[in-house]
C-alpha cells in the first residue's frame, strides 16, 4: 500500500471523516452531513495548506491518535486540547510537522466538544455522492473510525501551509446564544410559547448528537393539535417534538419531518452549537429575517 496513509492508533469515543458534506440531494432523502463546526474544519485545512473542502477528522470529547506512514504537516483546531507528537507537546491551532511513523495525538478536549484534525493532502476515502463525510443518520460515507483503521491520504495541492504560530479561534461557548428567525410553523405555537422560547433559559441535553442539539427546559405549548404533513427541513431548523423541548437540527438532520419547526437559527450560530457541552445554558434570541 502507498505510504500516503494514516493508521488510526486510538479512534476515541466518536471520530468521523468530514468535509463540506453533500448538499443538493435532500430531495432523495440524503442528509447534507459535513463538519459540524465548519469554520474550525476550514481553518485546520487552511493551516496545513489544503483546500477548504478537504476531508478532516472530527473527534468527539476525547480526541484521537493517528500514525502517518510518511512525514506530514497536520493541524488540530476546534475544541482546544493538548496536541502531542510521539508524546511531546506541540501547538494546538497551528501547523505541526509529524515525522513518518510518529503518533499525532489530539487529547481530550479541555473545552468544547469537537476537535478537527487536518493532514496535508486530506483524508482521501472514496467519496459518496460527492462527499467523504460520514453521515450518522443514513449511514452514507465511511464508518466511524475504529482502532486500526487505515485511511488513505490525498496528494497535496501546490499550496503552502500557513506561516502562523497559533491561529486565533473563538473559545467554546459558556453560554450558547442562538439567534432565531421565527417560522415557518411559529403559528402552531401559543403566544406564550413564543415568549418562553425567546426569554427562558434552556440547557444542552446530553442526548445531543450530529443529528440535533437537544435541549432541556420549559416545554413549548402548541396552539394547534394534529399532525403536520411531512415537509422539507433545513439545517438549523428548531423543531419541536411532542415533548415540547426544542431540537436544533445539525448537519446529519433528516431531510423531511412532521413536527413543527418554530424557527431557524442563523448559520453563524451553528459552529458554537457544535461546541456546546451538555449542560451549557442556551438562550434563543428572536431576530428578524434579513
Amino acid at each position: 500500500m502507498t505510504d500516503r496513509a494514516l493508521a488510526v492508533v486510538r479512534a476515541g469515543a466518536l471520530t468521523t471523516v468530514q468535509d463540506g458534506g453533500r448538499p443538493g440531494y435532500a430531495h432523495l432523502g440524503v442528509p447534507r452531513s459535513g463538519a459540524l463546526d465548519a469554520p474550525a474544519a476550514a481553518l485546520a485545512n487552511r493551516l496545513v495548506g489544503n483546500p477548504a473542502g478537504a476531508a478532516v477528522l472530527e473527534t468527539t470529547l476525547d480526541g484521537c491518535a493517528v500514525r502517518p506512514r510518511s512525514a506530514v504537516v497536520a493541524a488540530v483546531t476546534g475544541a482546544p486540547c493538548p496536541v502531542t507528537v510521539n508524546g511531546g507537546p506541540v501547538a494546538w491551532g497551528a501547523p505541526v510537522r509529524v515525522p513518518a511513523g510518529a503518533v499525532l495525538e489530539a487529547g481530550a478536549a479541555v473545552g468544547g466538544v469537537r476537535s478537527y484534525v487536518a493532514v496535508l493532502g486530506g483524508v482521501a476515502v472514496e467519496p459518496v455522492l460527492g462527499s467523504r463525510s460520514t453521515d450518522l443518520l443514513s449511514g452514507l460515507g465511511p464508518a466511524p473510525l475504529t482502532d486500526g483503521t487505515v485511511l488513505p491520504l490525498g496528494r497535496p495541492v501546490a499550496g503552502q501551509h500557513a506561516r502562523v504560530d497559533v491561529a486565533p479561534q473563538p473559545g467554546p461557548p459558556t453560554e450558547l446564544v442562538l439567534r432565531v428567525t421565527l417560522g415557518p410553523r411559529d403559528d402552531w405555537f401559543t403566544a406564550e410559547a413564543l415568549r418562553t422560547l425567546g426569554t427562558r433559559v434552556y440547557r444542552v441535553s446530553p442526548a445531543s448528537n450530529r443529528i440535533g442539539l437537544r435541549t432541556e427546559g420549559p416545554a413549548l405549548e402548541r396552539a394547534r393539535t394534529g399532525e403536520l404533513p411531512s415537509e422539507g427541513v433545513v439545517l438549523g431548523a428548531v423543531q419541536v417534538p411532542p415533548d415540547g423541548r426544542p431540537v436544533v437540527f445539525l448537519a446529519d438532520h433528516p431531510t423531511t419531518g412532521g413536527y413543527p419547526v418554530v424557527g431557524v437559527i442563523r448559520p453563524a450560530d451553528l459552529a458554537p452549537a457544535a461546541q456546546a457541552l451538555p449542560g451549557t445554558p442556551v438562550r434563543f434570541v428572536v431576530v428578524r429575517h434579513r
Partner: protein
Amino acid sequence: MRVLRVGDDALLVEVASGEEAQALHAELKRRRAEGLLRVTEIVPAARTVLLDGLSDPARLAAELTSAELPPAPPPSRQAVEIPVRYDGPDLAEVAAHWGVGEAEVPRIHAAAEFRVAFCGFAPGFGYLTGLPARYEVPRRATPRTAVPAGAVALAGPYTGVYPRSSPGGWQLIGTTDTVLFDHTRVPAALLTPGTRVRFVPVGAGDAAVPAGPGGAV
C-alpha cells in the same frame, strides 16, 4: 399558494393538495433547468415544496405569491416496475382495514399506478401515491424496531419500500429484491420525485423475475 420564510435563505411554499405540490415541484424544477431559479435544494413533500439556498428569498416569495401555477406536466412515459412477493406480516390487518379478503390486497395494490410524490426518511425512500383514498391505512400502533430492507409497506395514503433495514411503523404487505438506493449507481436512487411506479406480483419462488428499467439487480 402560501409562501413562508424559513431562516434567511429558504422558503417553504405551501399548497392545497399533493397534486398541487407535484405541479409546483415540476414548475420549480423547470425554472431551475432554464436558469431562471438559482437554488441549492428543491425538496417536495406532502403539501409543500422547500427551496433552500436562495440568494433573495424575499423577492422570490413576493413573485411566487402572485404566480399562477401551471397544471402538472404529464407523468414520465415509462413506469419503473417493482416485482413484489405479497407476503408481508400485516396483510391480514390491511385486508381488515380495507374490508376485503386477504387475497384481494395484492390484486388491488398491484392494479394501481403509483407516482413518487416525494422522498425522505432515508436515502431512496419514496412516498408513493396512487391508491384510491378508501384504501388509506393507519400506521401500526407500535412501530417495529427492525423492518427488513425491501419491505413494501403502507401508511396513510402512501406506499413505500424500505431501502435498508430500519425501525418503522408502516404496515408491511410484501417484499422486493429490487435495490432502491445504491450510491455507486447513477442515479443512486431508483425512485425520485415524479417517477411512475407499478408493483408486479411475483410468486414466492420468482424473486429474480426481471423488472423494467432500474428493476431487480
